[in-house]
């Protein structure tokens, strides 16, 4: 099953293919294969990353502001998740506003005609806000490589909340990298829930020393 975001890309590529009749065959091949054959002419391959390829962006604290840019190959050196897992969402997974629904009463609210009040509004700067949340307690030099996997609309007690499913990779040159998956608020960037944390045989112990009078 493909996500909604992929559809326009495929459609526009197909239109381009029709216009450039010499490469129609190549396009049809691409559509069927979901990945371009190595001999596909350069001009018909979308410059966008493949739909199943994860795009990483680096969040970095610079002069109290969060800088966001496409992750460099050096930053991604130790990050191995480069492909989105196949989208095997179950047949009951429903959508609204192009987002997967999550929570209560999903069947009803998947009908866009049913009014759904929301408690937040997606903010185009949610990643910067998230970066601020993720980095404000971190030591100098720590960065975050962020992968955005999916957008959700969570419904609870008849109200919607926009959320983003992300993979957070902390790049810490001193104490080592860490990673986990999370849901973040699409407006404030605040983390809502986390999972898929690393299971280490020898985790670094966090020590707490007692106060001595």
């Amino acid at each position, binding site marked *: 099953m493909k996500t909604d975001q992929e559809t326009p890309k495929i459609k526009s590529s197909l239109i381009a293919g029709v216009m450039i009749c010499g490469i129609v065959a190549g396009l049809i091949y691409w559509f069927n294969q979901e990945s371009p054959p190595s001999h596909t002419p350069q001009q018909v391959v979308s410059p966008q990353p493949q739909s199943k390829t994860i795009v990483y962006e680096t969040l970095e604290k610079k002069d109290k502001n969060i800088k966001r840019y496409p992750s460099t190959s050096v930053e991604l050196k130790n990050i191995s998740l480069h492909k989105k897992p196949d989208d095997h969402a179950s047949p009951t997974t429903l959508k609204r506003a192009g987002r997967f629904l999550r929570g209560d009463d999903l069947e009803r609210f998947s009908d866009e005609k049913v009014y759904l009040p929301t408690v937040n509004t997606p903010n185009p700067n949610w990643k910067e806000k998230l970066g601020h949340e993720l980095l404000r307690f971190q030591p100098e030099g720590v960065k975050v490589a962020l992968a955005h996997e999916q957008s959700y609309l969570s419904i609870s007690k008849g109200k919607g909340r926009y959320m983003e499913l992300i993979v957070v990779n902390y790049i810490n040159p001193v104490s080592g990298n860490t990673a986990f998956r999370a849901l973040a608020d699409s407006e404030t960037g605040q983390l809502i829930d986390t999972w898929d944390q*690393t299971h280490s045989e020898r985790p670094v112990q966090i020590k707490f020393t007692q*106060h001595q009078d």
Partner: protein
Amino acid sequence: MGIKSPQHIILITVLVTGTLHGCLSSGGQGGGRKSSEVAVQNSTMSVPEGYGRLLQDNPIILSGNVNLEATADLSKYLRSTPDFITYNNNLMESCEGSGTQGSIESCYEVRKDRATALPLTAVSKRWAFPVTTSEFAQVNAFGHIKKYIDRYHNLIRDLYTYKANPNTPPPLNFYETAIPRALYTTKAQWYGGQSLVIYADCDLPGNANFTPSDFTLCFGSYTEYPQVKMAQDPSVMHHEFGHGISQVMMNFRNIAAGLPERSNISYAFYDEAGSIQEGVADYYSYAMNGRSRFGEWGLIRFANAGRPVDENDTLHAPGISRNVEERLRYPDYLTYDSSEPTATIEDVHYAGQTTSHFLTAFTRDLQETCSMTFTQASDTVLYLLTESYAELGDLTGTASDHSAGANISEATINLGSGLDSSGVRISKDWVMKVAPINYRNFFQKFAKYAYQILNKGSSTRCNGFNYPLDNLEKLLDSYGLLLFKTYNENGGNANNGNSGTNKQVTAANRLKSVLISKNLIKLDSSTDSSPFFVFDKRADILSAVANLQARGNITQISSQIPSQLDYNNGNGEISPGEVVGIALNLYNDSNSTMAGVEVLANDWDHTKDDGGVPKPCNSFEDAWPLSTEGAAPSDGSGSSAGACQWTTRTNGTAGAPTETGESLHPVCFVQVRDGGTTKWATQDALRISQNQDPNKCLGGTTNRKDCYIRAIRGADFAWYSKINPKTSWGKTVPDESGSPTFNSNNILLFEASPDIPPGTVFDCRFRVRFTNCTECFTKQTDSNEDDWLDYEYSGPLPFKILHFQFTVID
């Protein structure tokens, strides 16, 4: 990419390997498979296409020398017969699904390390490399993990198709399996279908890990002995792979249902889920080699960090044996390290030994009682572990696709899949902290499946016989694990969780499993101790917050808290604007060892609405506060939604009209002046009396209930391994200096608003329980000694309530 015939070869190899265990030493002295010790030059052209060579076991076992040097020439332990690796040009392989569903083209691959973008490439289509090279380690990892991956996929396919058969509901099926129907269509059998990437030569000194966020395993080497790699020790790799597939099993139902969230195999530096999981992972290693210890080369030889899995192993201290009186019993051996038997160490690996020893003993029992081969018996244990983890990790709350006696939409485990007010799935909080995996719940679930599969209804799945349940109960008891009264077949559903079929444990089988009243856990009141420890050193807390955040353990910190924790003054008191760590000084007032002590600081159902103002209920065991001190008015007769005696069925989410007046409340109340008297009230009452803008509450204007003091989510529960009789936790687990080492799992983190008026007095009402507690899981008022229902963990009854009262000092 699918290779057919070689897989069959491997299959046969697995079966043969399974039967080989009997040839190996069970005394733990390093095995008897000594090789000819003639060096085999593993050159490219010495093998056919698609082949390479593996170290058939770790170098200690192959050499028969427990003191083998790090610099030893490992080529002496290669056999000349090549091993089939893969005909693929890269070190990667596909996996079959079931029938036409669930096949995974890129199922697993091996790369050198995280900096390497692609799996290893064959040289002249061959996989033979000199034994000292990283390439050899990669091929060795591939070959050994491939054996387990094949065994795993064969087992799960067999369960899905024949043994558990989720597509056939009862009564045609003889038990309710937790394996979901959509297992293969959603590729839930392989965590959604992504490639497991194995880094065989990772930059991870003396360590190994499993990272579910990118589905990777990492195997390091020793800084002091760079030649020694974890990837040379199959037992270590199989342990780590065991973590991976446990995580996969825990999420069978979640992935099949299309949920984005995942359950974790553990949640803290020390918790019982994590400790059981370490024992289970040690067992995974045992299931492949049948040996009495694991990690002979990767852990024992160079890090003194191996673990036996059988009392017969000579690593054990004197006094430990397979004799029923001398087993590695819970909770006595939770902090036991065989290499340092007098030390007490709160660590998941050592604590996990009770689990591994029980599982190996149960395997032997299946071999003897059911005349099973080692492979049949260990496959049966893996089957029961699969069912147990699939149900325990279930965030859909349904436990099975066909729960008998319950409507499918009604939850039977982990309360339910609804969202709480902050958007977190309630079931996820249940799995993580509210009703988490502990030694009682885990072995009850394991026993339920053992009963239903091997014993119930004249089952003949004990290799044609009916497995006697007394065997299991007596064995569990010999490990101190018969801590449950029933098999809880009827689940935890609010409507039918205390009715329906529910097999009871034979009480006479409980001889060594000790249950203690919850009333015997207290705060240490001795004159030389403080009932609490407060940690507020800036550097410590900043490091803790940064670490816990980077690991994904904690989510939000209030924007009211400055990012350098400038208010943290290290005076051992709670001051405005600080992030503080709090540990209760817990005391065991009984004559037996208490274990699996958990303190909860999350929101719970302990207030009642009084004319629009929530007030603390005083009808619980703590009878706090007095009616004259601000308590909610009494319920009067009867109990209905909104009353103190009524525990919310939906963790406070339903509201009107289903559960009018039901909501959760944070743990901390505050003293406010009310005319001439002081009363205990909500933090919002203090805010109103202070005329404070709700914008300045820790959680902002929509979170006024914990405006001034707030437990940090993810650090709102604490675990303590065990407390010896008549003493405190601190004195049970001392370090060399005699005082305890506090780890992150021992500490609750709280934020204190910069706007708290100095001198303000707070009272936080924590809920505390422990695993071997009489009343914390079994409902004493139920005539069948059934378990508390899932929803009841939102309330006071399954817990001991302990108060932490403090004055904020500037």
